[in-house]
């Protein structure tokens, strides 16, 4: 019973994670300017990566694998938003403009 519950939860996490990665990929291609594209890639990837790792953790059971997955999750939670932050800062510094609704589409 418990094992089935865990497997179901893990499948749910993995499914949502995969969907988020896909949607992030679509957003990366479809959004109009650099900043919204970065939002699509950065935000969904942090969440999606976390969800996929969570799904794997549920399958791993107590042990060294679980511990390693937790470490990877921590690492991603710290580095991924930082990378997005650095990227946005670099883009602003490089003079990239935010596109507003009224602007002409490229």
């Amino acid at each position: 019973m418990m094992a089935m519950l865990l497997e179901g939860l893990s499948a749910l996490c993995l499914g949502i994670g995969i969907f988020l990665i896909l949607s992030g990929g679509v957003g990366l291609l479809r959004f109009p300017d650099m900043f919204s594209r970065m939002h699509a890639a950065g935000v969904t990837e942090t969440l999606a990566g976390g969800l996929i790792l969570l799904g794997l953790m549920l399958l791993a059971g107590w042990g060294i694998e679980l511990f390693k997955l937790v470490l990877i999750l921590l690492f991603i939670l710290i580095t991924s938003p930082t990378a997005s932050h650095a990227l946005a800062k670099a883009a602003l510094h490089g003079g990239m403009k935010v596109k507003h609704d009224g602007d002409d589409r490229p």
Partner: protein
Amino acid sequence: MCERRAEIELLLDIALLMLLAITALAIARMRDLFAAVMLAGIYGLLSASFFVSVDAVDVAFTEAAVGAGVFPLLMLTALALVGRREQAEHRRPLMSLLLVSVTGGMLVLGTLDMPAFGSADAPAHQHVALRYVETSPEEIGIPNMVTSVLADYRAYDTLGEVVVIFTAAVGVLGLLFAGEAAGVRQATMHEHRVLRVVSKILIPLILLFALYVQFHGEYGPGGGFQAGVIFAAGIILYAMLFGLSNAKRVIRPGLLQMLAACGVLLYGSVGVVSLLSGGNFLDYSSLLPDALAGRHLGIIVIELGVGITVASAMILIFYAFASAGATLEEPS
């Protein structure tokens, strides 16, 4: 189940190799060198994934650390010296096209004689690899066979590789390092508080991970090369965020020059000691009365030598590029 897995792996390999080819073409066509360097990093990551998919985790680890990690960093610091646009080339270099096509054609022709990918009849799987796989557990007794081959059976080749890295560092220093740069750039990223805070959390972990990789190389993927590169990446991150002059105060270039040489010396002297104690050059079994313990000792010491040389060579090369960039930026 097993067949299904093989099918998925084949699909994965094809996808990865296609992405590799596309990235390579994109790099060749790119005029913006900055983008080309970024693509080269992606190329490194893709090849690392491909190596994982063909079960070569040690190579994948090296490729991820070097190809996707330190190499783009060093190229970026080099770009700070030369500018980010490639010079426009108007000539149509027919001659070079001909040369490249002939060489490429000959290479393709050469592969026709090679055994098929993954073929069990390949000469490599007939005697050498078989010998390593069958006898190394008793002969050397460490779980990671790649380390056995790299650090013991092929210790002589590895010594050569370490010397190559040392020579590269010496070459870069000879070309770029004209003594201490006069006006070394002060901390460039004063305003980047988030990056600084996060890197303060990460740098100790990176250095700790490098040491883990260094001393865990006999049991899992890893060893001196990967550990050295990861350690250097930690220091380079520090130098980028807290300023070159601060980093140079933490680890002085003079000390690094000495360490780079000491690593090679340590490696070579293990060979000499084994000669003196009655074995062949780099035959570790003569180091201690117990042959197996001697081999373990030899592997640990030479891996340490590799790690020290690689780490100091990488940091030295970064210092050299970054200081040269800083002197260029100084208003005359």
